[in-house]
């Protein structure tokens, strides 16, 4: 949300933040009666609510609120004793005047530009794309920029046959319980205990499943047992029956 739309609900003013500023600059709201702290609180609330900080928008807010604070603080300073009020309108008023004059300058400049643009209506410029031969390299001046190997490489890729859809299942059938049994037995023959993960390292899911099945066979035969401290935790396999 842009700073301009920050919605304010103050004692003397309800509406978007940037309307407040405009009204103050144009003397339609008395700055002395505006509680600026509430404006800041509203902005911080808004920042917390949206949870994002747009730096550009935040800077804009800071510049505007700082200008307001400065104006207001000067307005609130008591006029010095014996100061001739008729001759000294106060710095705040001077500051306001300077800003209003500056704003008027650019408001008039804006009117000038709008008028100038209107006066240009009727001059249209051509917006056609360049002819094709100007959009490509001229044969006479062309230099080698591409490597021919990239063509051979692209063609090599196109020669690759896609993997056959069914091969996964067919290959899976080649994993037999006998193979996995002998794999586990050879492991048990070498070490006293090992983790199941190590036993199926690098294997596909089907092999894992068949290995687990083979482990159950070994357990049934009293050749191996296992421990698992918690569900889905690591499984430690060791030689010999349970207990």
């Amino acid at each position, binding site marked *: 949300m842009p700073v301009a739309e920050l919605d304010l609900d103050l004692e003397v003013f309800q509406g978007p933040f940037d309307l407040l500023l405009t009204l103050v*600059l144009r003397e339609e709201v008395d700055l002395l009666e505006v509680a600026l702290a509430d404006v800041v609180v509203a902005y911080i609330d808004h920042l917390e609510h949206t949870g994002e900080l747009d730096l550009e928008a935040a800077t804009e807010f800071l510049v505007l609120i700082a200008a307001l604070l400065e104006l207001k603080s000067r307005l609130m300073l008591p006029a010095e004793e014996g100061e001739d009020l008729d001759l000294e309108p106060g710095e705040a008023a001077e500051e306001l005047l300077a*800003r209003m004059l500056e704003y008027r300058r650019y408001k008039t400049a804006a009117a000038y530009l*709008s008028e100038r643009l209107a006066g240009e209506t009727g001059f249209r*410029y051509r917006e056609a794309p360049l002819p094709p031969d100007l959009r490509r390299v001229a044969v006479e001046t062309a230099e080698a920029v591409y490597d021919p190997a990239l063509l051979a490489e692209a063609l090599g890729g196109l020669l690759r046959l896609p993997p056959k859809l069914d091969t996964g299942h067919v290959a899976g059938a080649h994993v037999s319980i006998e193979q996995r049994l002998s794999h586990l037995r050879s492991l048990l023959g070498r070490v006293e205990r090992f983790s199941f993960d190590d036993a199926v390292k690098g294997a596909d899911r089907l092999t894992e499943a068949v290995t687990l099945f083979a482990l159950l066979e070994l357990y049934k035969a009293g050749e191996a047992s296992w421990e698992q401290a918690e569900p889905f935790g690591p499984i430690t396999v060791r030689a010999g029956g349970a207990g």
Partner: protein
Amino acid sequence: MNELARVVEALLFLSAEPVSVERLAEACESSEGEVVEALARLREHYAEGYRGVVLREVAGGFTLATDRVAERAARRLLARPRTPPLTQAQAECLGIVAYLQPVSRPELARIRGVASESAVGTLLERGLIEESGRSRFGAVLYRTSELFQKLFGLQALDALPDVSQFDPSPEDERELRERLLKAGEARTEA
């Protein structure tokens, strides 16, 4: 029309952007003096009021554009308006950027007294202003684009009238000061 003038005419016809004398000379392998002369010949051919196309000097270069005489028919043929007018907010932002460039959005807000996000966004989108680095405090700075000069028929940025010309008259200033004084007195009395 001699050959150089013919070539210059073709280049201006093809180029989407105004072309400077320097770049024309380079492309034609001629001197800038010769190009200036060729442009003078072209200008005779494209004298305003005689042709459907006119030779214009904008944005630091030369370009061909259609004459106003064709505006109605062009709108019917191309079915698109030329350039939509600017809103007050857009015109104010553009004025500030044009005169103070490079200028940041917070600075725009300070002068206008209102946040200027949406107007700046539209000006960027329409290509009238463009980013131009960042200020010391990290705010994006904006400047006017070449398109701005082209669409506003400006030969260069310094073709803009002096900004002091837009200052309120001494009478306006006096009147404004008196109004503020009255407001100040009212507060003091209160």
